[in-house]
């Protein structure tokens, strides 16, 4: 089905107009907080719906060419769409529509002491920039939109600037995103200079001719730039600070969608712009993915701040996506195009799935924050009785992220496993060993993620409330629940009928690498590499529902009794069960802290205060078991100290003496003249 190019540009214009109207409208109606809230989020909602249509039309084969030669230097501003860009636009819309709906109700809490007009402006600009980034067709368009996206998100992150730690978190985010931007700028300009053109479509053809040393350097720079946006370890340090600090619908978008644009960049670099590269490119991405996956979930397991736990979990899922990408790159290097496609399909499907369930989880955390005013899991509990619908929706998100059937996380993780398992077709022992360790890392990540979300859901929602605030929680308003329900339904739909997404995804990958992925699928089943692996998600779901229905009937048939009595917990015979007897989040994570003690390097502090008259009576016990952040201590602090010492040395240049400044100008002039001549 050929989609008209003018129809596509109409859809894009509609998207931008709605988002622009939302942005400006929010600013103009700033006087009335309620109007700013509704105009801002309403504009975002409408714009995202148009963006969804635009993306779907692009996936169906629509094309677009917009060129404004005088808008930007070095080639002007160029926008265009192909199937990969369309896929990412669809992903952004799938997360942005619920986020905007959520924002309508959620931002009511900000009325009075925050500028809702500013928030609406930044929110709409953020979404617009994110939608336009995958459409950029040359260097400066891409970088300009990237920068707008980062700035808009920075202002959203520091919305609650009166809260302690938010400004610091925003500052770390600001520095890291610009460090990544610098790497991207350098890489792009180097490649543009080496190939002689700044347009992405030309690079696909010309870049293979560039000399290998430059290609390696460009790859490393772009990988660092995109990796820092994606949150790959060790460039992840901004994620666990910025995502919790932002308002929840913004966290949902940042974690669900913005970091995926780093993935988009990496896919473009590895499979489109630079072409096939040496083995160590794929190996580096694979290893980075394995490390991010395991370390991300390990840090999530010991965190008691619900939103920071979700942020670390995003690092983990980016690791899983990188595993798929790295595998794809290694298959491409080994000339196995069917498997390259398979690994790419797995990675991109996980990208979409993560956008769905991570947004759902962040929205759930936001609902908890809205109802109880705390993010600390040690103060939550019992919410399943006071917020039943939020509880079910958060449970669905937890099941999806733990990769359990019948939800979408299971399908994409199954596909990632299959693409790693077929690696034995490569006949190089080092690569085989690398893949074996990658499989082990993915399995460990998967198991630990399940443990992490048992803890997150169980401690926050189940049993008795651990504080008065949790005890007085109430269900959130319908817009918030509707947004979460939409995402939960998406998770279920993609888990039961993955062929809905696999069909356009397979076509996208075919467009990108030129061969079909080694997989077959129809509405009920999918098969990988002939009969290497089979899965029938629809049948599994039907089987689950069928058996669930049969068992109670069968029990009634054989005459099992139905009587039930409610009483206090038995607890091995202890009376008077209170909330103080419950397991805490810290205690739940204790086995992991012990097993992985080498990694956490936690520092235990125990202060016991005895009664002054007898050491047998204890007044208070204070126990603190703080894990240390190894990357901050080992990598960033020495780097920052080195920069500081260099800056201190350089300060001696600022003597205040006008004559020395004149000499500096002279030297600079002479140097520039020598360079250009």
């Amino acid at each position, binding site marked *: 089905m050929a989609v008209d190019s003018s129809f596509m540009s109409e859809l894009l214009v509609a998207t931008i107009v709605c988002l622009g109207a939302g942005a400006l409208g929010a600013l103009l109606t700033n006087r009335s907080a309620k109007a700013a809230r509704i105009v801002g989020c309403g504009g975002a909602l409408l714009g995202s719906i148009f963006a969804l249509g635009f993306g779907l039309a692009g996936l169906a084969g629509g094309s677009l060419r917009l060129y404004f030669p005088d808008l930007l230097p070095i080639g002007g501003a160029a926008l265009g769409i192909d199937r990969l860009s369309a896929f990412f636009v669809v992903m952004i819309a799938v997360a942005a529509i619920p986020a905007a709906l959520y924002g309508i109700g959620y931002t009511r809490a900000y009325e009075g002491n925050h500028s809702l007009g500013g928030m609406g402006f930044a929110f709409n600009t953020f979404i617009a920039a994110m939608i336009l980034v995958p459409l950029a067709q040359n260097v400066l368009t891409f970088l300009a939109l990237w920068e707008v996206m980062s700035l808009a998100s920075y202002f959203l992150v520091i919305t609650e600037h009166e809260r302690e730690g938010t400004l610091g978190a925003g500052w770390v985010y600001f520095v890291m995103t610009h460090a990544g931007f610098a790497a991207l700028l350098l890489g792009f300009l180097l490649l543009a200079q080496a190939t002689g053109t700044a347009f992405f479509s030309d690079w696909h053809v010309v870049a293979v001719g560039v000399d290998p040393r430059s290609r390696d350097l460009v790859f490393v720079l772009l990988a660092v730039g995109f990796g820092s946006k994606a949150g790959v370890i060790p460039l992840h340090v901004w994620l666990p600070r910025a995502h919790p600090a932002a308002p929840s619908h913004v966290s949902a978008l940042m974690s669900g969608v913005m970091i995926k644009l780093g993935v988009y960049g990496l896919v473009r670099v590895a499979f489109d712009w630079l072409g096939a590269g040496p083995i160590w490119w794929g190996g580096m991405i694979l290893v980075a993915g394995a490390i991010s996956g395991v370390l991300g979930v390990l840090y999530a397991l010991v965190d008691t701040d619900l939103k920071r736990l979700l942020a670390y979990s995003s690092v983990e899922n980016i690791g899983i996506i990188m595993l798929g990408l790295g595998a794809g790159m290694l298959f491409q290097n080994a000339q196995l195009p069917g498997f390259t496609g398979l690994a790419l399909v797995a990675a991109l499907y996980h990208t979409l799935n993560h956008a769905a369930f991570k947004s759902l989880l962040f929205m759930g955390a936001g609902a908890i924050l809205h109802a109880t005013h705390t993010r600390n899991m040690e103060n939550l509990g019992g919410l399943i009785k006071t917020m039943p619908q939020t509880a079910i929706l958060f449970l669905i998100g937890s099941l999806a992220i733990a990769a359990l059937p019948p939800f979408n996380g299971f399908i994409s993780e199954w596909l990632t496993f299959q693409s790693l398992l077929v690696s034995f077709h490569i006949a190089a022992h080092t690569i085989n060993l690398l893949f074996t360790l990658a*499989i082990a890392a993915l399995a460990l990540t998967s*198991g630990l993620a399940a443990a992490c979300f048992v803890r997150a859901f169980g401690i926050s929602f189940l049993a008795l409330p651990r504080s008065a605030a949790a005890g007085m929680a109430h269900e959130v308003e319908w817009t918030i629940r509707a947004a979460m329900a939409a995402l939960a339904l998406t998770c279920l739909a993609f888990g039961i009928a993955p062929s809905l997404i696999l069909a356009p995804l397979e076509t996208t990958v075919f467009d990108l690498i030129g061969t079909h992925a080694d997989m077959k699928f129809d509405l009920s089943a999918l098969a990988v590499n002939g009969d290497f692996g089979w899965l029938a998600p629809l049948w599994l779901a039907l089987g689950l529902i069928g058996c669930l229905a049969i068992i109670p009937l069968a029990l009634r048939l054989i005459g099992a009794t139905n009587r039930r009595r409610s*009483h206090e917990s038995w607890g091995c015979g202890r009376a008077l069960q209170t909330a103080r*007897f419950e397991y805490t989040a810290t205690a739940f994570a204790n086995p992991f802290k012990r*097993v992985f003690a080498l990694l956490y390097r936690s520092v235990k502090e125990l202060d016991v205060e005895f009664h002054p008259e007898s050491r047998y009576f204890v007044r208070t016990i204070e126990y603190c078991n703080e894990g240390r952040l190894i990357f901050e201590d080992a990598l960033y602090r020495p780097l920052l100290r080195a920069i500081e010492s260099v800056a201190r040395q350089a300060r001696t240049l600022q003597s205040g003496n006008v004559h020395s400044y004149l000499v500096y100008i002279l030297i600079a002039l002479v140097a520039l003249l020598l360079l250009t001549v």
Partner: protein
Amino acid sequence: MEIAIEFLQLAIVMFASPLLVGLIRKAKARLQARRGAPVFQLYADIRKLLSKETVVSENTSWLFRFTPYLLATTMMLSALIVPVLSTRTTLGFMGNIIALIYLFLLGTFFLALVGLDAGSAFGGMGASREVAIAALAEPTVLIAIFGIALRAGTTSLDGMITRFAAEPLLMLNTGHLLAFFAFFIVALAENGRLPVDNPTTHLELTMIHEAMILEYSGRYLALVEWAAGMKLFLFLTLLSNLFFPWGVALDNTPVALVIALVALAIKLVVFVGAIALLETSVAKLRLFRVPELLAGSFTIALLAVVTAFFLR
């Protein structure tokens, strides 16, 4: 015809698993110079529990009442996927071995949540330990699967058994044996047998599975115990049929099915003896020594894969 065999397999798993548990207990009792309970004791227990009123804690939620049904469901669904008697089953295409592992993990997830639901420290402790052990056992399972899939060229259970059945001298293959041992240790860990967890203890510091189901009574306890029995049956069936596929029916003739039934019974009895012997001779490991055991099983599985690669 194949549907009938499918349901026959399901019926065997559903109705023979309490007998398996009873046989293990009887064998252990005999080794400990006791007479032990009758082998059909678990059937009597389940029947008694089904006629008792259930007592539900006030602190719990709908999850508590839902999970026993879910556990039984996942086990029944797994019984449809695992080739118990025959490799030609209609519903075996639903999932491969990785899907099976995740179905088991689904049950573990909900059971751990139930442990936290009652709000007692026992349940929380059991849940915490259970998910830690399940998470640490995952890499071993997947690497062992990689090792077997390498040699079989497929990850679907039917395909693996069919291909292995063509090699009668399979037992002498190093990689295969190593993968078997790794898988066996994981089976012990996942089913809560010694040396990882003691299925007969009720001391708070030594229980893992029992701690999570502490608050269950009546029909819920019956379902949970039955599901645990089915899980053990399925794991042992997998071990027998995957690593020693002699006797598994490759076509669906009545003769082949009878041979498969007899062969399965013999292999399961051997496993019963092995487990009973193992449980009588080793003591339960201290909790924080269990990761060392699992790390050891991971190394064995890794060796299995390396052997498979180098002896290709």
